[in-house]
């Protein structure tokens, strides 16, 4: 099953490689991994999307907690949460594609953030599945380039991951 794991870690050199190394050394899946510094500059917040059986997820959480630099770990799937991902898609904007892309972009509540002679660059945020759905909905042959950030997740309401 797909899980979104959030963690806070010391903002130190090499901290990211410890997490990435743990996943590769123990053969865990990573669908996406995002990391950036928090409002407290000594802490980084990471969101990892992974898949595995309940036993594997339990081990992943324990192994992450065991890393010395990791301050707190939360499996967002344990409660209500929100996830968002940002995608930038560069598509052909010539002929039939020109209006079609604008329409699809509106339907998915995206924004065109760059217009060139022959292409649009569309910015889209949402859950990973919404971004997948957008890719499915448009004509594949019109896609020139896609960039996705991977998911960021946060608990709803009172579920707060803080030191």
């Amino acid at each position: 099953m797909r899980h979104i794991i959030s963690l806070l870690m010391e903002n130190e050199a090499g901290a990211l490689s410890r997490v990435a190394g743990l996943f590769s050394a123990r053969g865990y899946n990573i669908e996406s991994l995002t990391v950036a510094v928090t409002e407290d500059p000594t802490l980084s917040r990471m969101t990892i999307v992974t898949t595995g059986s309940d036993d594997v997820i339990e081990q992943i959480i324990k192994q992450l907690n065991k890393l010395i630099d990791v301050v707190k770990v939360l499996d967002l799937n344990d409660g209500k949460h929100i996830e968002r991902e940002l995608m930038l898609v560069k598509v052909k904007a010539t002929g039939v594609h020109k209006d079609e892309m604008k329409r699809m972009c509106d339907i998915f509540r995206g924004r065109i953030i760059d217009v060139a002679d022959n292409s649009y660059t569309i910015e889209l945020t949402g859950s990973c599945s919404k971004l997948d759905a957008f890719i499915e909905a448009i004509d594949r042959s019109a896609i020139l380039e896609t960039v996705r950030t991977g998911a960021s997740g946060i608990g709803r309401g009172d579920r707060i991951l803080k030191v």
Partner: protein
Amino acid sequence: MDASAHSATDTHAKSMTGADIVVSCLNEEKVKFVFGYPGGAVLHIYDALYKQNGFKHILVRHEQAAVHAADAYSRATGDVGVALVTSGPGATNAVTGIATAYMDSIPLVVISGQVPVPAIGLDAFQEVDMVGVTRPCVKHNFLVKHVKDIAPTIKKAFFIAKTGRPGPVVVDIPKDITAHVADFIYPKTVEMRSYNPILKGHSGQIKKAVKLLLGAKRPMIYTGGGLVLGNGAAELVKLAKALNFPVTNTLMGLGGYPATDKQFVGMLGMHGTYEANMAMQHCDVLLAVGARFDDRVIGNPKHFGGQKRTIIHIDVDPSSISKRVKVDVPIVGDVQSVLADMNEILAQEENQSTDTADWWSQINEWRGIQSLDYTYSDSVIKPQYVVQKLWEVTKGEAYVTSDVGQHQMWAAQYYKFDKPRRWINSGGLGTMGVGLPYAMGCQFADKHAQVACITGEGSIQMNIQELSTCAQYGLPIKVILLNNRYLGMVRQWQEFFYENRYSESYMDSLPDFVKLAESYGHVGMRITNPADVEGALKEAFDRKDKFVFMDFLTDQTENVFPMVENGKGLSEMVLSPSTASRLKGEE
């Protein structure tokens, strides 16, 4: 660096170089021995240690041996072992030693030199990314980039190494940092928001465990290296005695319970005794203490799980619990503290008696199989016989180190360890070549102790250069070489599973070990006759001040039994031909 590592009470700081700071930190930690090898990136540190007389530096002949010796020193004493190596090849040579310590959870601080900070990343001479290379095989590691960070980092390194589930910590220090000057303030305490091991077990869980133990009909206690490392042996003995339960130890856990006690059923696992494996498989309540149900211990996990039993698991590392086997009552905490709590709760119980008579008669029936039986020969030396005689001659009091292979299993099966921290071997990583440096570490830990290194002719050659270190420091180690002219365990598997195709398991051109030992100024002995084994051992151990290298020419085709073959269940053991034929005769 986290400023909270500094304590507010530190005063009168003294200004000194980074190298002097490193040395001062080690002395603050009351380190007695540093095992190491000098080189370019650590020259400032070597100059600083030349000018101090706190700890003693032990010069090995290869960095791998430095880490192994520090590791064994820690296993024997419980203190943190310390090694010092240079950058690049010095650092990579240390990696096998670090990985060995990591797999067996041994607390080490390994200080490695690094090229100067401005040269990092430029492929400088003797540069290697030590933090990157060691990341998968350390508890934690640090690259120090400022001289003021040296002291707090070393303080943290010792703290992390020895607390919680212990492990090796690498501190990589660039050369220029060791020449810079800073005030030396050694923090008194360490506080880390990201690292707070749980030591006290959950009282509700402990009570539940005691209830389960008291209600057990077929109980079993299974303890591992964690019991030894956590200094929990005395509490465990108290608990086992109060309950009259059978106890088995893993390879790493030998000595955790006295092997000569009647409640001890021997080691379990791939080469465990029949009674230990059968009792482990068929018990109804299992108390696991500082052990991790690994593949060499429980055999096929599906087969093991096929038998219903309630498992209580005490471990300081939450990730060891329910990793390979689902556990019913997990107790996270320091084994000594949890066992003491258990003993206390047990003492308050009105009815402490357990009904285990039927179970014991079943166990004694299994014992009657005598699975460690072997056929003595008066023409060729049986390796098991050498270990039995070694146990007798040393009165079971020696520190015994081993390498890896058949001889390791025979040592574990036939030397009866009554005390913890006497059996020193590489259980997790299975590193050939540890035996001799391990013996060095033990001899430094206790200079008057009897130290025996049980080894094979394959393993001993992997760190044979340390004969020189033993000569330099006058270490009176006794090497017990069980020389069968084969990589014995490889040969055994090739006999069983590869139709006797002995691919590269025979060693030609062995050195004359007697002459080799003598060339270093040691005593060499060759023993070829079974009748001479005991006398030779007595003679060797009587030479209290000499290093004696004993080359026993042993039976080339002897195999280790019982054996749980790969993928088989724990109770599906292959018994030795002599045991099997005896059992057939009795039918």
